[in-house]
């Protein structure tokens, strides 16, 4: 009896296994996508069913669940299994994996500067070899495509990946109830912002909460601030030559007056007495995730906090968007430079060239690949074919609207810079300057010295 049941159990397990294997593809809905690559078309007919694509990236946990949810439909349509593994130490691991020849098929890079090195080494597959250029041009703003174009192994530009998600950065969060109870109004110009800050100081509070501590990455929130001010005080051309110079001759060094001017403008906001909760000394020592918490104290201890949209996951449990907090656009400083918007985003780069990987990459260039993630929150879509009504939260829909109204969209400069600067000397230099260890000129010179020649 016992033996029989074990045999039956094994048979059952085997049949379950074969069931999964034989699970076919149901095919993509007709007319959902246009300008598809040959591989995506054949995937949609179910011809690539049973294949697997490995993916890796830095997002884990909740984001991983949302990601898996957003690709589930595509997997059912095509029968391609997308296997994602997230790692907290992604940046370090991906380097070792690519060097060791164990790269995943697709990797998610939040710092496109890292991809540059892989592209130059010829490790990254040029997606323009199989994707319809017309489609890319139609579905992405030109500035996105510019930022994914990188020099390949022979110096020719290749398209190193597709933009899959982005974060809005130019946002100032405020505790809505306390803000309104105190009778403050949302500033729309820099002068109004300064006037509001002065008003809050006169009322006996600190206007800003700032924290740039982040373990080994301490200083990155300060680089975001620098980029915001750069975009608002100098030309886009200068910003591009500063963050992502096309060649060495064009590079705008950190020692340039434009950069120094931006830092000084930032300094007036951060170092003015009583402007920042805890004063200048508190900035470098406050964990960026804890920085907004005093806004939700009773009574509020500060009223404004500039950070990307991800910061809401650090807000205290139970605070509600639109009720307890809201955001406004960090106003322009010099009207001449319009209303720029700073973003950061994730670039999906491809390391192994197989038909199913091509099909999946094409899928990621389409808004459909984010649809359910947008609905459950935590992501913004860079795709033109993503609809505003797909967003599940008003906050994210509001950010997407702000981006569409912006006169220019620029990528987080420190993520584009070579890693030695973008995730090295820039962080450290800003921290040293903010904490008062070195003066501004020395800090800027130190940051610039790390730029690879």
């Amino acid at each position, binding site marked *: 009896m016992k033996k029989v049941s074990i045999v039956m159990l094994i048979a059952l397990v085997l049949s379950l296994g074969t069931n999964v294997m034989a699970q076919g593809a149901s095919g993509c809905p007709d007319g959902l996508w246009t300008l598809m690559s040959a591989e995506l078309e054949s995937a949609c007919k179910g011809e690539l069913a049973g294949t697997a694509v490995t993916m890796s990236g830095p997002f884990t946990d909740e984001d991983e669940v949302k990601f898996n949810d957003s690709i589930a439909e595509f997997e059912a349509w095509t029968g391609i299994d997308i296997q994602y593994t997230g790692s907290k*130490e992604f940046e370090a691991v991906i380097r*070792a994996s690519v060097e060791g020849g164990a790269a995943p098929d697709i990797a998610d890079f939040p710092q496109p500067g890292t991809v540059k090195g892989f592209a130059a080494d010829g490790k990254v597959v040029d997606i323009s070899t199989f994707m319809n250029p017309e489609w890319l041009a139609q579905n992405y703003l030109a500035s996105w495509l510019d930022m994914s174009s990188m020099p390949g192994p022979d110096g020719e530009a290749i398209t190193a990946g597709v933009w899959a998600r982005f974060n809005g950065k130019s946002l100032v969060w405020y505790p809505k109830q306390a803000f309104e109870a105190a009778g403050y109004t949302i500033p729309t110009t820099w002068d109004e912002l300064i006037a509001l800050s002065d008003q809050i100081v*006169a009322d006996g509070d600190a206007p800003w909460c700032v924290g740039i501590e982040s373990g080994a990455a301490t200083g990155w929130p300060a680089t975001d601030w620098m980029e915001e001010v750069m975009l608002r005080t100098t030309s886009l051309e200068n910003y591009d030559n500063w963050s992502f110079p096309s060649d060495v001759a064009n590079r705008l060094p950190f020692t340039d007056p434009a950069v120094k001017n931006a830092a000084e403008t930032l300094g007036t906001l951060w170092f003015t007495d009583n402007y920042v909760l805890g004063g200048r000394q508190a900035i470098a020592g406050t964990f960026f995730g804890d920085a907004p918490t005093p806004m939700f104290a009773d009574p509020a201890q500060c009223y404004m906090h500039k950070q990307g949209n991800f910061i809401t996951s650090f807000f205290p449990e139970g605070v509600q968007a639109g009720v307890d907090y809201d955001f406004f656009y960090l106003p322009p400083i010099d009207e001449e430079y319009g209303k720029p918007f700073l973003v950061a985003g994730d670039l999906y780069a491809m390391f192994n060239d197989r038909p199913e990987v091509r099909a999946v990459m094409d899928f990621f260039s389409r808004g459909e690949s984010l649809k359910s993630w947008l609905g459950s929150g935590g992501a913004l879509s860079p795709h033109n074919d993503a609809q505003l009504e797909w967003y599940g939260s008003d906050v994210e829909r509001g950010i997407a609207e702000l981006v569409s109204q912006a006169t220019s969209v620029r990528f987080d400069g420190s993520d584009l810079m070579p890693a030695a600067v973008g995730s090295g000397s820039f962080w450290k230099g800003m921290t040293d300057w903010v904490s008062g260890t070195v003066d501004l000129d020395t800090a800027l010179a130190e940051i610039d010295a790390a730029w690879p020649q």
Partner: protein
Amino acid sequence: MKNTKRRAILVVNGVLLIIIVLWTIPTVGLLVSSVRDRNDIQTSGWWSIIPHQSWVASGEPIAAPPDQTRDQPITINGVTASYDEWRNGVNMGDGTRIVWVGNLRTGRLQLYTQQISMNWNFTLDNYNQVLAGKAFEIQRADGTSTTVQGDDLVGAFLNSLTVAIPSTIIPILIAAFAAYGFAWMKFPGRRIIFIGVVAMLVVPLQIALIPILRDYVNLELNGTFLGIWLAHTGFGLPLATYLLYNYISQLPRDILESAFIDGASHFTIFQRLVLPLSVPALASFAIFQFLWVWNDYLVALIFMGITNRGNQVLTMRIAEMVGSRGQDWHLLTSAAFISMIVPLVVFFALQRYFVRGLMAGSVKG
């Protein structure tokens, strides 16, 4: 005479007690934190569970004097202090304290009295989330929402055991054979090879990661348990061989020689005499190696890393639990405690050998 002796014992025990308390405080803090809820962990230290005097609000707040400015001193109930001092609270001298709550325009005054309080708001929520997985709510486009259960620790826990046990036993077996060979067998080049093995001790494992990964990819070992067992074996062998050599070479020569005379082969001697006699050294190295493998993050990350999610070990899983941006770091408290259980069991099980083993090979002659 007896008195001095007793005093000496008291002093020694007292010092030991202090050291023990100092050394256990972080663990106690971790344990206490692991049963506190997220907001408490983020806003106050674990020591706030100890009863302490604190100021507690009494009564409703009253209106603050109007039309004050930030740089003028403000007088309330006969006490004068600056606005910033009032915000932090000023002791009124009669056991009460007044705090200015809010800003200058809309602020109110709150009276505080002193009371003994303790923060005993304990919860098992952290353990629940770590053991059962976090529950994520996924909003659908049509307005409905589903709850998706995140990964729990169980799979990773079993993986860690699967990695750690063979990674402890394999190097010990090989190293014991090698140590016996180096200590009791005569063959040409013995010294040179032994020096070579010892020299391996100074090679940092980090520099070997990428070359080994390349070989693993070619051999299709990457992401497999066999691969990681071999990696840990390789990285652990030099120290194991050295440690066991020191112990085994100090075994009394007479015992082994008489066995030889009785016609025992090397294998018999190794198996019947050397292994049983070197249990303390074997056990103490087992503890070292097990703890190292159990707590290892780097080697697992590289060789299991990003290609095989199903084989994730505990350290990787715990690192992921804090979320993409570290927003759930409070879960580290309970996760750390759960991951500590196995090393503690191993340590206490092998502890009686440990002290003897620590001295393995340290006393010559």
